[in-house]
């Protein structure tokens, strides 16, 4: 199976590891270990070294200034998809995207990139904005929660790594998500 992943972040040499970076790298390795071809698209100006035979393509962002994190998340996702066109070949069976930014990239890729037109969109969330912040009293948080709700509803399948996240999907966004806490199991479920 050919799998393409989209994420804001991927581990970089010399930088502290974030939860998202760990998730993307470990799931990519698990998918690879199951015998699948995996390419990860992420944003960044310098080339990220391939890790554990997972091909990582960093796409630079021409736009440098953003008024806020929402503008950044939306705008940078568009730029990544605009610039990935000539960096990948062939068709993919599955899109695996991480958090709302990666999911926008994945959905845009499915809508606009020939390599992804027939791929199934799988979305994986570490958490929702309701776990991270207070969308009811913060305009940025409220916006992110609203975007999360819309983005995750567009995906074919949604997975949460925590029960709380899955519960939030149901109660806040009315989305049925699968609770899959273990990375190896997640890799098997996605490719089933």
């Amino acid at each position: 199976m050919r799998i393409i992943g989209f994420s804001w972040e991927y581990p970089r040499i010399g930088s502290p590891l974030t939860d998202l970076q760990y998730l993307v790298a470990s799931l990519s390795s698990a998918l690879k270990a199951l015998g699948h071809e995996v390419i990860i698209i992420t944003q960044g100006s310098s080339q990220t070294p391939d890790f554990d035979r997972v091909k990582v393509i960093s796409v630079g962002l021409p736009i440098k200034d953003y008024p806020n994190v929402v503008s950044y998340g939306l705008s940078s996702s568009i730029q990544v998809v605009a610039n990935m066109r000539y960096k990948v070949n062939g068709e993919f069976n599955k899109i695996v995207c991480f958090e709302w930014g990666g999911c926008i990239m994945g959905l845009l890729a499915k809508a606009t990139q020939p390599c992804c037109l027939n791929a199934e969109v799988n979305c994986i969330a570490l958490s929702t904005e309701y776990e991270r912040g207070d969308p009811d009293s913060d305009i940025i948080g409220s916006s992110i929660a609203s975007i999360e709700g819309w983005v995750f509803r567009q995906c074919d399948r949604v997975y949460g790594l925590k029960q709380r996240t899955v519960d939030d999907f149901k109660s806040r966004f009315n989305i049925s998500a699968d609770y899959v806490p273990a990375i190896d199991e997640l890799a098997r479920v996605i490719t089933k």
Partner: protein
Amino acid sequence: MRVLHLSWEYPPHIVGGLGRHVYYITHELIRLGVKIDVATVGYEDTHVIDEGVNVHLIDAFKVRVPDFTSWVHSFNIFMMMDLSHISDVDAIHVHDWLTAPAGIVLKHRFKVPLIATIHATEYGRRGGLHSLESRHIHEWEWLLAYEAWKVIVCSSYMANEVKSVLGVPGDKIVMIPNGIDKALLSFKPKYDRSRYAYPWELLIVFYGRLVYEKGPDSVIRAFAKLLGRISNIKLIIIGDGPMREYLVNLANQLGLGSKVYFTGKVSDDELYSIIAHSNLVILPSRYEPFGISALEAMALGKPLIATNRGGPTDFIRHMENGVLINPDNPDEIAYYAEMLLKDEGLAHRLANEAKGTIMKGYTWDIIAKRTYELYKAIIEERTKVNW
């Protein structure tokens, strides 16, 4: 030939002149045999045929956003997802940065030329880049110009601006002006003159957004000076904007009282009726990429005093088909206003010449033909490129 236009404005959703521009150019292009799709802002995802134009209305309010730039990007994302089923497009035509993100992605999706009309720049609108938001918009404008096969501008002033501000090479820039609806050349007022002025009053008109860049304050100051020399004059200020309260106070402070009348926003029929009944139009913009309002006054056959900055200098020749003035000099405005109001022969000659200028080169059918020729040339060039 099939061309996809991306525009955040299209009737009935109109904020400024961009929506009218897209409406007229697309309808004239249809008459030339071009298949046109327009993707624009709507309140639900739907598709309508507007006199031959395929209009894709995109619900641009699916998510909450904290600011304008985020809204623009969310609209572009919805637009790209909605347009994913489109095929057989020969070119994509983007109007300003507001639809640049979708235009750039779709250009690479279809491998067709991207044409960008830059109606104004953020740098020009704001007089510099003074905020993160402005810098963000400016960078998208730069990227749009960079990705475009050709950049269309409406005036030589704008050609210089995109060269200096966005670094666009000269051979990539094509100057095609805006136009006016041919019907305006034979417009008959829908309302009586008595609705706006007494028979003995000479009517001076300003219309546009009431913002500093349009120079309405200069009109009021010039009018105050003029009133000392001609008593039977009246000024009508048409339009609305953040400067309105300031302008009302200014008129009162200058003792102009009932001599200045603020109409607020009016319908097109009423606007053109007032202009048609007027004796003089004054439009002293401080920043004017093109100046479609000036074209409208000329098409209606009215003597016009316009800014000597920006677009109007392309089509107004001083004392031949209008008068060009420094918008920051009310004395100069008053001087020429007095000249035109007192010398009917001169005013008549300038107005006639102005109407001739419009008929020769500034109606939408002529503008559309030039755009069509550009499309043809670009699509032909594309066939010779290995992409």
